[in-house]
Each structure stands twice: as C-alpha cells, then as structure tokens.
C-alpha cells in the first residue's frame, strides 16, 4: 500500500484570516480505487477540494501527482501546485463540483459542451466547425458509453444526464484523478445507479476517484476506502474489508462526549403529535410525539430529510400523507404565516440565506415576524419594538453597541443569537431550530443551548442537528433520522452510542426502534 499512490497530499494547511480550516491534511489516492471522503459541514472538505482543484492557494504542505510514465516504485513524484482550475485540469486532476450547472453550459447542445474546453483553449481554431465538433463529441461520448442525443440542449436534459455530460466533459481530459463533490445530492436513485455504473467503468480504467458524499447508500455501493475528516484534519482512514462504516461515521461526527451532561427531563403533556407523516416519495412514515417542556434533537447525516421535516412542520412544504395535531387540534399549515399564527416558529438553517435581512439592524431583524403584534392600525410601535430587542440582547448576551447596530457588524455567533432572539421573543407552542449551531463559536453555542433549556417550559422544542455532540449537549431526547424517516429514539441518559451511531449510518442490522 501507499507506494502506488497516484496523488498524494501531505501536511496541507489553510487558514482564512486567523481561522485555521485545514490543520495538516495528508491523503493518498490510488489508481483504480474510489476513496470516499466524509465530513460534517465545516470539516474542511470543500476547502481541501478547492485547493486540489486550483481554486484556492494552499497555506502549507505538499501535493504530488505521478508522472505520465507511472511506475509503482518511482518515489520521484512531481510536485503539484495548480494556481488555477485550468492548470489542475491540464495536469490531470479534474473536479466535478456539487452544483451540476457549474459543469455544463445550459444553452448549448451536448456536443458543444463535450468539446467546450477544446473550443475555448488556446490554439483552438477561430472558425467553428460543427461537423468536427460533432465527430469529436461522438468520440468522447463513445469512450464513456454515453447514450445521449448529442444535439439535445443541456437545458432539456434531466439532472442525471447533465451530470453525465459534466463528467464526460471532465473525462475528455483523460485525468488521472477525478474528484466528485456530492454528485448524487440532486439525483434520484435510478439516476444515481447510472452514475455508479459510469464510475465503475472509470475505476476499471485506473482512474483514482475521490468521492465526497454523505449518503451512506452511495458509500456502501462505491467505496474501496473511506477517509473521515473532522475539524480540518483527517480523523480516520478505513481501508480494511469489510469497511467499517460505523467507525467512519463515528470518526466524522466525533464523540468527544462532554461530561457536563444535561439532566434529561420527561414530559407528560403532549404538544405536537405526528402520525404517519411521509415527507418524500417512497419514505417510511414518521410518527412521533413532542411534549411540553421537552427539548428533542433529531440527528442524522446531511440529506436524510431533516430540513424537509422542519419545513413540513413550518408550512413551507406539504407532507405526502399523514396528520399532525398541535395542542390537541388538527394542524396542517398552508403557509409560514399560518404556522406562525398557530404558534410554530422555525429558526431556519443557514442564517445568511434564510434568516438575516441585511438592510435591517438588530432591532428590525428581531421584530420581523411579529410586526402585527407590535403595531396598531398597521403603524409599528417602535417603543415596543425597541424594548423587545433590548430585552433579548440582554437575555441572550448579544455583544453589540446598541440595538441599532448593523447585522454585518456582528460575529457569526452573535448573528445566530439574533436569529434565535427573533423567535424566542414571543411565546411558541413548538419551537423548531434547524442547525442552530452552524458557524457558531463554542461560547455562543453554550449560551443558546442554555437559553433554550431554561426557557423550555410551556412549549416543545425541536432541534435538527448533524453533529451528535450538539444533540448530546442540549436535548432530553434524541431521535435519529435516516432515509427521510425516523429510525431510532434515545433518552439522553445512558445512551447506547453504538446503537445510535449504527442508526445514523443506516446499517441494515438495525430497524426502527
């Protein structure tokens, strides 16, 4: 092992400002092998990929790529330091990014897309020769076993076909290393199967593949090797057959169990009852009950339906089937406005995208959903608005000069506190938080968790978190989600972590609890 690495990264470092994102990453990729890279959000996967593909400059460490005359015993690997994506591609490292549309030009046909790099490269002919383009494109398509009409426009193709074109286009460079960043995140399972077949073929051709994914089913299907990443370092390498999937998940989520464990409470009075709720085609139904005063965390990998469930509860999307009862009354919100009126609040994930109104100051951001309650005859009562903001700033310990500060002046943790303050300022029946600790420093995270637990009485609190630690630190009860449904339930006292991790990894041995 090790000697036949096609591509080798050693001690790679990268910092943005004073924040270290990669703290010395070493990684080998072997020819004809699929290496799966796992890691939670913020673990540094994308940064690593961007350095390898020439988007970012590395902060330290070395990278090397085997020469064309590949010999197993040849240690004299060439140093590899691309300054631009084009250089990386020329050297033989090709990346297919998560956003499929980055890899194809939607308004052009398949043939042009497949030959685009040759058309735009230096030394390309000035005149556009449609016949030659089609011939070259056909050669590329045949080599890849691509059965798509070459004259079809990309925008008329399915996502899977676009993905195939993007990969085929990448393969036209005959790379030694192919990196795929969550390629199946928008594909159906039938579409994903076609992708896997293609990857199998590339593997047989001796391409070293780095495959980034959270989907356990993909990983089981493809992986020859799993590398887990956490907090900017490699936290585990698994290459002994049969692969230890649970160990890989464990290494990715980390289990630095804090001993300031919480005292789990039990709740008697149900607030929300969900019965037979299906949130995706083909998913098993979800049934659960949340009680008054209870803090429940739902954990699971990215893409298992946590956000879909949160949005269903908040009226953003409708369930395929099933019923919900809120405080004993039927609850079927048709809009976010109806959900809020019923007392269901959501702190959405990704505050920059879904939460913060950039043109508004702290005070205006906090009052946003409750203008009606803070106004008379439509006129906002600014005194009440300001008093509410000041109280929240104090209670949550938001660090700012005043309630009139711009949001952009706040740190990530304080911005998130404002998002929590927005909703906690009014009494809720069901308070949902989707990834509330994303991009939040430890102390702000502790403040928010403490506030959630201290104010929990009188409502049910539901958190969606990928990181297990966050669930263990805040929740009375932990539910595990996998494949768009709930697969496990644990009281946060004497938790059987082995079983919980197995459920997160979606192992076939364990059925629903």
């Amino acid at each position: 092992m090790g000697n036949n690495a096609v591509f080798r990264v050693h001690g790679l470092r990268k910092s943005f400002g004073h924040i270290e994102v990669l703290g010395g990453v070493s990684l080998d990729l072997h020819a004809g092998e699929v290496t799966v890279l796992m890691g939670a959000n913020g673990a540094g996967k994308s940064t690593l990929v961007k350095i390898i593909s020439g988007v970012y400059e590395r902060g330290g460490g070395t990278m090397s790529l085997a020469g064309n005359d590949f010999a197993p015993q040849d240690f004299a690997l060439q140093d590899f330091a691309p300054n631009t994506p084009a250089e990386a591609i020329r050297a033989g490292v090709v990346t297919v990014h998560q956003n499929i549309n980055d890899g194809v030009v939607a308004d052009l046909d398949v043939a042009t897309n497949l030959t685009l790099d040759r058309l735009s490269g230096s030394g390309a002919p000035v005149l556009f020769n449609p016949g030659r383009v089609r011939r070259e494109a056909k050669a590329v398509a045949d080599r890849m076993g691509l059965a798509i009409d070459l004259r079809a426009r990309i925008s008329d193709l399915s996502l899977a076909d676009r993905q195939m074109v993007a990969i085929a286009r990448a393969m036209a460079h005959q790379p030694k290393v192919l990196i795929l960043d969550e390629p199946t995140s928008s594909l159906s399972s039938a579409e994903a199967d076609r992708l896997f077949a293609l990857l199998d073929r590339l593997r047989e051709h001796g391409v070293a593949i780095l495959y980034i994914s959270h989907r356990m089913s993909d990983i089981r299907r493809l992986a020859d090797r799993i590398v887990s990443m956490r907090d900017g370092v490699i936290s585990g390498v698994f290459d002994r057959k049969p692969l230890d999937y649970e160990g890989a998940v464990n290494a990715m989520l980390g289990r630095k169990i804090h001993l300031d464990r919480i005292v789990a409470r039990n709740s008697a009075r149900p607030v929300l009852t969900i019965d037979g709720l299906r949130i995706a085609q083909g998913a098993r139904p979800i049934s659960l009950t949340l009680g008054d005063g209870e803090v429940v965390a739902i954990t699971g990998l990215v893409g298992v339906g946590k956000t879909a469930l949160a949005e269903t509860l908040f009226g953003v999307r409708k369930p395929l089937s099933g019923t919900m009862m809120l405080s004993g009354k039927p609850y079927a919100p048709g809009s976010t406005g109806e959900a809020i009126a019923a007392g269901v609040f959501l702190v959405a994930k990704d505050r920059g995208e879904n939460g913060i109104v950039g043109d508004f100051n702290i005070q205006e951001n906090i009052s946003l959903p409750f203008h009606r309650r803070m106004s008379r005859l439509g006129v906002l009562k600014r005194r009440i608005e300001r008093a509410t903001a000041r109280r929240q700033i104090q209670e949550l310990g938001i660090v700012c000069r005043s309630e009139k500060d711009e949001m952009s002046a706040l740190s990530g943790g304080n911005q998130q506190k404002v998002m929590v303050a927005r909703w906690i300022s009014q009494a809720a029946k069901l308070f949902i938080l989707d990834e509330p600790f994303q991009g939040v420093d430890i102390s702000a995270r502790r403040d928010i968790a403490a506030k959630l637990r201290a104010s929990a009485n009188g409502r049910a609190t539901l958190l969606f978190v990928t990181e297990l630690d966050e669930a263990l630190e805040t929740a009375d009860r932990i539910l595990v989600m996998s494949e768009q449904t709930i697969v496990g339930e644990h009281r946060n006292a004497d938790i059987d972590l082995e079983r919980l991790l197995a459920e997160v990894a979606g192992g076939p041995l364990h059925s629903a609890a």
Partner: protein
Amino acid sequence: MSSGWVRMAAARDHAIRYGFIVLLFGLIAYFAVAADGFVSPQSAVFIFQSVAITGVLALGVTATLVVGGFDLSIGSVATSAMMAAAYVMVVLEQNAVVAVVACLAIGVIVGLINGWLIVYMRVPDLLATLGMMFLLVGLQRIPTEGRSIATGMTMPDGSVANGTFGAGFLALGRHRFDFFIPNLIPVSVVVLLVLAVLIWFFLEYTRFGRMMYAVGSNERAAELAGAPVKAYKIWAYVISGVFASIGGILLAARLGRGDIASGNNLLLDAVAAALIGYAVLGAAKPNAFGTAVGAVFVGVLLQGLTMMNAPYYTQDFIKGLVLVVALVFTFALSGRGKR
C-alpha cells in the same frame, strides 16, 4: 495620524449624507446668479409643475424598488391614462369623475398584470415591465388610430367628437393656490405633497412598508418570517401603476387634451429622481423622502438649463450624468450598496 484618518472618515460620511442636498442648494444658488429670472414666481411655478408629475411617478417606482423590483412601464401608464382621460371626456362625453376612475382603473389593472407576470410567470421585472411599456405605447394609439385627442377632432368613422374636458378636471392641472404670492402653488403640487407624505409614512412607519423593505433585502427570510411575499410584490406594482395613472391624470389636466407626443421624458425623469433618492442623506436604499428631493433636483436642473438657453438635446445628457454621479455616491462611496 489616526485622528486624521478618523476626521477624514467623518468628512466622507458627511459628504455622503449631505452631498446631494448641498449640491441641490448649490445648483439653485448657481442658477439664481447665472440665469436671469430664475428666482421668480413664474419660474417657481414651472419647476413645481414639472416636478409634480415626475415626482408622483417617481414615488410609485420607489415602491417597486423597495421590494427589489423595478417598473419601466410607469411612463407609458401615465400617457395611457392621459389618453384614456381624454377619450372618456371628449369622445365618450363623460364627466371628470368617470375619467378619473377610468385612469385609476388602468393603473390598478396594469399593476396587477405586471405583478402577475413577475411573481407567477417568473418574468424578470425589467423585461416584464419593458414589455408592458411597449404594449401600452401601442395600445393607447389604437382607439384613435394614432391621432391625438382634442375637442372637435374627427373620429376614424367620420363623426366629430364633441365632448370637452370638465372645468373641474382642468383645475387639477391649472388651478393654483395662493401661497404668500398669489397663484403660486399648482394643485398638482398639493397632490404630490399629499402622496409623498402618504407613501413616506407608509414605508417608514407601517408594518406593511417595513415588510416591503424586508422582501427587497432578503425575500427568503421575509417568507420564513411569515410574510406573504408574492402579495407584497404584486401590491408594489399596483402602487406603482396607480401612482403613474395619477401622474397621467395631472398631465391630461395640464395639457387639456390627449397629446400622443407628450410624456416622452417621464420615465427617465422619474427613474432618475428615484435613483438619486438613494443618495440623499446616505440612505443607500430607495426611500420616499429621497425620491422627493431627487424630483426637485431634476426639476431645478431642467428649469435652470432651460432658462440658460441650453439646447434641449443637452438636457438628457446632463440628467444622465447626474444620475450616474448619484449612483456612484450610493453604491461605491457609502459602501452599503448591497442591492
């Protein structure tokens, strides 16, 4: 050294905040000296009158700018309303009230269609309202086969249109109130002031206005805060359409006829006023007060240039130049131009 920097930063802040107000007074002072008769009641009346119509249109387009949209159809809505008013009174021989109602209805309908195109048909705002502009420019010519409308005109079928503009309707454009000097303030200026105060209050002090700003800044966040985002956007275009039709009523009342050739500059002037408004008091966002100041600015500039005998063709150039400078003020210097 560092205190020097602080002072410079403070000076820059002041320049951004008060720059355009200072420029406005500077402009007035310059014209007062350079242009004979600029400081006179007649000149003031003329400025007021020209400001009134562009100002009303600009306030309407401000509403669409607030929700992050844009309305290019305002000029043609105004001229369509003008033609409709003339048609209703002259050809259909109805009274002023019917004419006003017809104009407002046009504004509402066009606003609803614009909103529907943008919100439900997902046509980009600039393109939807551009299309609407072309559509209206053509539509307003169909009933009279491209002719202007005036009392006594011959209709396409050979009959003569005998209706007249009602006295009450004409007063909207021609009557002037005494204000220190007799006959100084035209009715249209009063209309502008009332509408300006209304929209200013609406945007700054009501929850609806606040939510419109939220929609313009982060639509997704507004939706997740329970706001009916689509409704807010459509309302913004309805406000814009109605204001533009009010502008058209004032225009018809001033001209006393349905003039096919008038109103060409309304769109540019109104948009310039609203965008200059971004820079007033360093707001860096669309706002009613800024728009009003912007409209006065454009009015003073035009009247001053006219009185200095600047050729008409230089006026558009200078307006465009002022607009570009104002946009630089807003987006580059203040560093807050996040839109």
